[in-house]
C-alpha cells in the first residue's frame, strides 16, 4: 500500500545508457526535471513552504505589520500546559482511538457478512459503501438532522421503538463526543469493509479446505486462519485511520464546533479558532507542529513495526 511502498525509482526495464552517451544522459536528466517542474513548484509552494513557516511561526509571537518577536519555546509551553489545549488533545486522542477501533471492528464484521460473489451482495456492498463517498459536509448536515434532540427526532424515534432515550446527542456535553464518534464510525467502517474484502479475497483457500478437513468450526477457522492472514490489512487500516483521526476537523466544525461547553473541542478546531479567529498565530502554529510530529511519529512507528514483522 501507498505509505509502505518501497520507492523503486528509475524504470525497471530501463536500459543503462552506453558510456559514450554522456551528453544524452545529461539531456535526459534535464528533460526529467522539466517534467517534474510543475509538481515541484506546487509542492514547494503549498506543502513545504507552509510547513517551514509553521515551524518558524511556532517560535515567534506573530505580529502583523509590527514584525515577529522571537519567544523561544513559549508557544509550545502554552500548548502543553494550557487547559484548553490539554482537553482538546484528550478529545482528539479519544476520538481517534474510538473511531479507529470502531471502524476496524465494524468494518471487519461487515466484510465477513457480505463477502461473496453473488450479485445481490454487490448491491449490498455498494449501498453500504455510499457514506464513504458522500462529502463530509453532507454527512455532517444529515446527521445534525438525524440527531435532532426532540423525542420525535429521527434517531430518537428509532431508539424509542426499542425503549431507549430520548437523548440530547450533540446538545449535551455527556453525549456529544460519542455522537460525533458514531458518525465517524458510520462513515469509516464501510471504507475499512472494502479493504477487508480485498484482503479476504487474498486468503489462501486451501487453508480453508484444510481446516475444514480437520473439522474446525467456522469460528476457529476465522481465528486461526483468516485473521492472521489479514495482519497486513490491519496495519494499513490502523495507520490510515490514526492519521485521519488526529487531524479531524470538518465533522466537528459542522456538528458541534467544539461545543457544548468545549466537550468536543479537538486540536484542529482549537487551532483554527486560535489562528483564524483570535489571531494567535504563533500558538496555533505550535499546535500544528505538535500535531504534525505526532502524525509522523505514529506513521513511522506502525511502519517500522510492520517492516520488522514481515518483510514484504
Amino acid at each position, binding site marked *: 500500500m501507498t505509505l509502505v*511502498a518501497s520507492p523503486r525509482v528509475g524504470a525497471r526495464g*530501463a536500459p543503462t545508457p552506453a558510456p559514450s552517451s554522456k551528453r544524452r544522459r545529461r539531456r535526459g536528466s534535464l528533460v526529467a526535471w522539466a517534467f*517534474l517542474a510543475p509538481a515541484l513548484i506546487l509542492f514547494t*509552494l503549498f506543502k*513545504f513552504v507552509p510547513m517551514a513557516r509553521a515551524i518558524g511561526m511556532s517560535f515567534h509571537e506573530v505580529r502583523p505589520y509590527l514584525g515577529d518577536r522571537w519567544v523561544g519555546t513559549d508557544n509550545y509551553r502554552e500548548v502543553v500546559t494550557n487547559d484548553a489545549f490539554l482537553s482538546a488533545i484528550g478529545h482528539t486522542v479519544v476520538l481517534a482511538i474510538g473511531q479507529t477501533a470502531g471502524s476496524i471492528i465494524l468494518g471487519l464484521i461487515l466484510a465477513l457478512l457480505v463477502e461473496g460473489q453473488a450479485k445481490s451482495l454487490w448491491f449490498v456492498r455498494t449501498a*453500504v459503501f455510499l457514506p464513504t463517498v458522500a462529502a463530509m459536509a453532507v454527512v455532517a448536515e444529515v446527521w445534525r438532522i438525524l440527531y435532532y434532540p426532540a423525542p420525535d427526532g429521527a434517531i430518537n424515534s428509532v431508539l424509542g421503538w426499542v425503549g431507549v432515550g430520548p437523548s440530547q446527542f450533540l446538545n449535551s456535553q455527556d453525549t456529544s463526543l460519542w455522537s460525533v464518534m458514531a458518525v465517524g464510525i458510520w462513515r469509516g467502517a464501510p471504507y475499512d469493509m472494502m479493504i477487508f474484502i480485498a484482503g479476504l479475497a487474498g486468503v489462501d483457500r486451501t487453508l480453508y479446505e484444510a481446516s475444514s478437513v480437520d473439522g474446525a468450526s467456522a469460528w476457529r477457522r476465522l481465528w486461526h486462519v483468516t485473521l492472521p492472514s489479514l495482519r497486513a490489512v490491519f496495519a494499513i487500516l490502523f495507520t*490510515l485511520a490514526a492519521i485521519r483521526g488526529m487531524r479531524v476537523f470538518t465533522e466537528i466544525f459542522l456538528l458541534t464546533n467544539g461545543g457544548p461547553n468545549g466537550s468536543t473541542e479537538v486540536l484542529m478546531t482549537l487551532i483554527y479558532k486560535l489562528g483564524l479567529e483570535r489571531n494567535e498565530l504563533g500558538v496555533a502554529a505550535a499546535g500544528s507542529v505538535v*500535531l504534525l510530529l505526532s502524525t509522523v511519529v505514529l506513521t513511522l512507528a506502525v511502519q517500522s513495526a510492520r517492516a520488522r514483522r514481515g518483510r514484504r
Partner: protein
Amino acid sequence: MRHDTALGFTELKGPLARTVRFVVYTALVLVFAGPLLALLVSAFSPVHDPTSLTLLPSRLTLDNFRAAIRRDVLTYLLNSFIVVGGGLLLQVLVSVSAAYALARKQFPGARLVFLLILSTMMLPEEILAIPLSLVLADVPVVHVNLVGSLVGMIVPVGAWAFSILVMSEFMREIPMELEEAARLDGAGDLRIFWSVVLPLCRPALGVIGIFGFTMIWDQYMLPLLVAQDAAQFTLPLALRSLRSDEQVGVGVLLAASLLALLPSVLAFLAFQRQFMRGLTSGAVKG
C-alpha cells in the same frame, strides 16, 4: 462442503439461512444507505423541521429546490464544478508529468524527490491550515493574493502525492522498448509522453480521475480558508449557511445537501471498478 468465504455466512443453504440473510442485509442497507435515502426522499417532500424527515413522502414537491435556488445554490454548484474541473485537470496533468519523470527517467536526486513527495501524504490541508492561509494571501515569489478567488481553491490541489504514486507505479510496468521504438522513429520526449505512454495509462488515469474527483469535491478546509464571502462558496461550504429558510424550513438544507451529494455518488457509481482498484492498490485518501 466447499469454503469460499471466511465465515461461510453467504454460502449457507436453506430457507432459514435465506431469511436471516435477508433480514441482516436489509438492516445493513437501512443503517448505511438509509440516511442518504431519507435525504433523497425528504428533499422532494414538504419537510419543514427536522422531525418530519421521512422515507415515505405524503406528497412530492419542488418547493425545497425553488427555495434553494432563490438562496443562490446554483452559484455554489457552479463554483464547485469550476473548482473540481480546474483542480482535477491541473492535478492530473501535474501528476502524470511528474510520474513520467520519476518512473521512466534516471537522474540524480530522483529517489530524494520521490521520498519528499511521498512524505507530503502526512501533510494534509488541515494540519497546514494556518500557514497555508498566509501563503494563499501572499504567494511567495510571485506575490499574488489568492484569498477570495476560486483560483486559490484550484491551484493547491494540484499537489497530490497519491496520484503521482499510483501513476508512477503504473508507468513502470510499460515496456521501455515501446519508447525506444518511437525514439528511433524520431519522436521527441513530449511526443513520446503524450502519444505513446499516456494512452497506455488509461486504466490508471481512471483511478486517479475518480479519486481526485471525490477528494476535491470533499474539500472543506481549503475553500474555508480561501472564500471571503458567499460569492466564492463551494456547495459543501455553503451548506452551513443554508440550515434554515423562512418558507420551507430545513427543506432548503435537504435540497442543497442532495445537490452536494449527487455528483460524488454518481461519479462513484459510474467509475466503481476504477474506484475499487484505487482503493485496494494503494488507497490513501490523504
